[in-house]
């Protein structure tokens, strides 16, 4: 009897949902986007996928900047049950494809000419050898300064052109009773400043030598000492209560006018926009100041695992097409606060900061000042990138000389090799 009634219910439900005519194949996507705007942005992909007749099975594992997601993936792969697709940051996609578990997307790439639309400096993160193994959805810039316009006016300062100017402005801000720089003590937040300093002081080529190639000479150079000297001066711009401060809390301090500036990627922009603030009039956005400005990118991409179910395999094709679809890239990034990974799209209806980023990206691609954000894994492999974070953070919170910091860096990198 119970069986019969549940069969009845099931068939009624089936009738009710049978309108899309066929049983929907779902593709499971593992990602770590759980905040409100991130989920809203994901919905644009989900809807476009549904229009192609495929379902999206959400598998969000938040926390630990994706650390928890990595843990989940390892156990899934070990059990021989990988998800259909996954969001990748840094070298993750390339590393997994070297393990032989990723599917290549070469046919789709050839048919659609995707590679031509991706910045050449980004390709190493989605291409393993000759195989395209992931499709990038967005591009964030890591080296922005977010500033409160009213605080700048109160202290009588303009947008600084160099770090020396920025540090000098800090004194004026302090005199006006404003904390010059909002930051937390988490190593990655300090590393964001460090990354910016490396290319702003040493130039993009130095950045590549030190943070990508891990060249011992560059690591041990006077330029690196100078970077730490400047980082020490930046420490003087920070208040005492920076322990355990979340990046979004620091952004909030800039929004309130309690602090004047924050060095942070453009995910911080969403916090300003959510409060109804306008770029240019209420808050300022500009690249970290330098005579050799760079664009330090962070991308999110989707890679597909090898699966046995042919239906899921078709769904993977659909998902890749959706991710590279110009309209989806446009809509997704409008919500997420980033800019489209495709370089061939218009951004006329984006906010001024995004437009600025879009223009400066084009310049950076030309002048080869397009750099992977080391903090987020787009320079050296994580075991090395983490050493930079450790040393920068230790230097920042301790009384340590720049010479000692450079030594610590050289030793740490050697030990991780």
């Amino acid at each position, binding site marked *: 009897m119970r069986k019969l009634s549940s069969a009845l219910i099931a068939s009624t439900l089936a009738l009710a949902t049978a309108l899309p005519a066929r049983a929907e194949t779902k593709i499971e996507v593992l990602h770590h986007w759980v905040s409100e705007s991130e989920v809203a942005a994901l919905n644009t992909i989900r809807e476009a996928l549904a229009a192609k007749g495929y379902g999206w099975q959400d598998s969000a594992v938040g926390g630990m900047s994706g650390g928890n997601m990595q843990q989940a993936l390892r156990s899934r*792969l070990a059990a021989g049950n990988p998800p259909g697709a996954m969001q990748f940051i840094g070298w993750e996609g390339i590393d997994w494809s070297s393990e032989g578990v990723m599917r290549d997307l070469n046919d789709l790439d050839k048919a659609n000419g995707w590679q031509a639309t991706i910045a050449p400096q980004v390709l190493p993160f989605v291409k393993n050898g000759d195989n395209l193994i992931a499709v990038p959805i967005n591009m964030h810039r890591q080296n922005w300064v977010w500033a409160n316009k009213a605080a700048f006016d109160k202290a009588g300062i303009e947008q600084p052109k160099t770090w020396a100017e920025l540090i000098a402005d800090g004194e004026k801000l302090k005199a006006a009773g404003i904390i010059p720089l909002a930051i937390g*003590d988490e190593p990655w937040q300090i590393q964001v400043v460090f990354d910016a300093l490396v290319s702003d002081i040493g130039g993009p080529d130095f950045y590549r030598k030190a943070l990508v190639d891990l060249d011992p000479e560059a690591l041990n150079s006077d330029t690196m000492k100078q970077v730490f000297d400047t980082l020490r001066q930046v420490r003087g711009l920070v208040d005492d209560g*920076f*322990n*355990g401060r979340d990046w979004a809390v620091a952004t909030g301090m800039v929004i309130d006018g309690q602090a004047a500036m924050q060095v942070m990627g453009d995910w911080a922009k969403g916090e300003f926009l959510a409060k109804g603030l306008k770029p240019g009039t209420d808050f300022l956005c500009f690249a970290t100041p330098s005579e050799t400005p760079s664009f330090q990118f962070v991308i999110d991409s989707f890679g597909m695992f090898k699966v046995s179910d042919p239906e899921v395999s078709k769904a993977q094709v659909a998902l890749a097409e959706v991710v590279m679809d110009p309209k989806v890239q446009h809509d997704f990034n409008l919500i997420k606060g980033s800019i489209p990974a495709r370089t061939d799209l218009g951004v006329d209806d984006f906010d001024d900061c995004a437009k600025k980023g879009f223009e400066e990206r084009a310049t950076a691609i030309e002048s080869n000042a397009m750099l992977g954000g080391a903090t987020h894994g787009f320079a050296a*492999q994580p075991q090395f990138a983490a050493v930079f974070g450790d040393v920068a953070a230790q230097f*920042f919170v301790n009384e340590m000389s720049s010479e000692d910091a450079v030594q610590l860096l050289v030793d740490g990198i050697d*030990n*991780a090799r």
Partner: protein
Amino acid sequence: MARRKSITDRFADWLPRLVLAPSLLAVIVGVYLFIAWTGWISLSSSKMVPQYDFVGLEQYYRLWATPRWHTAVANLFIFSALFLTVTIAVGLLMAILLDQNIRAEGALRAIYLYPMALSFIVTGTAWKWILNPNLGIQKVVNGLGWESFVFNWITQPDFAIYTIVIAAVWQSSGFAMAIFLAGLRGIDNSVIKAAQIEGASLPRIYASIIVPMLRPAFLSVIVLLSYISIKNFDLVLAMTNGGPGSATEVPSTFMFSSVFRRNQMGVGAASAIMMLMTVAAIIVPYLYSELKEDRHGH
């Protein structure tokens, strides 16, 4: 008649083993097998995924050449030593005071025991705010008019580990108190009365008679607290996330970040084995002495 009895007997003989078998199997696979696996990984070149090769002690050399690991080990010892001593002292004192036939003892006991009901994440988050110089104690005292008061340990790399001790003591001393109180209640009143008749003062009675009689309670508290301090992970994560810098890194957070965030699975496994050895160095002598006493018929 005799045959039937022997079947039931045999069944009765086998029953305990049958009942214990599933959990024994679970423990063998879930604990010992994975300890062995971790040991193997620690001798391999594993980075992102397990590699089943053999590189000898290379990962251990690498581990001990990492300054963060030295910080983590030093922190473990500082934390454990202070956490154990202070928690035991505070717990014992509270238990003795509560044992003086005071009013509303039940209510007080519940109040002191209550922090134990919170998870370390909640404790850590609350103390992070309480100790933040711009939000917590320092701000309150400054606001009351003592402008020069400074209490910013949590921002000082050299002192931050002590703030974690403060939070952990707050959380666990009620628990130590409960065990000591149970121990105190188990002491025969006539012993105390006899000592009083002999003219011993109350502090003397406690120092020379009662506290020594609490030895089993001490052992339980020490074992339980030492394992809390070695597995300490969530408290650090919630309170300082290993910071400032990496000043409050402990072995468990080091292990997690090595394996899941730095692609150094081999180093992570080596650190796990080092932790296991530390625990074994404490537990094995304890188990040995306990089992030996059993054999003597205690």
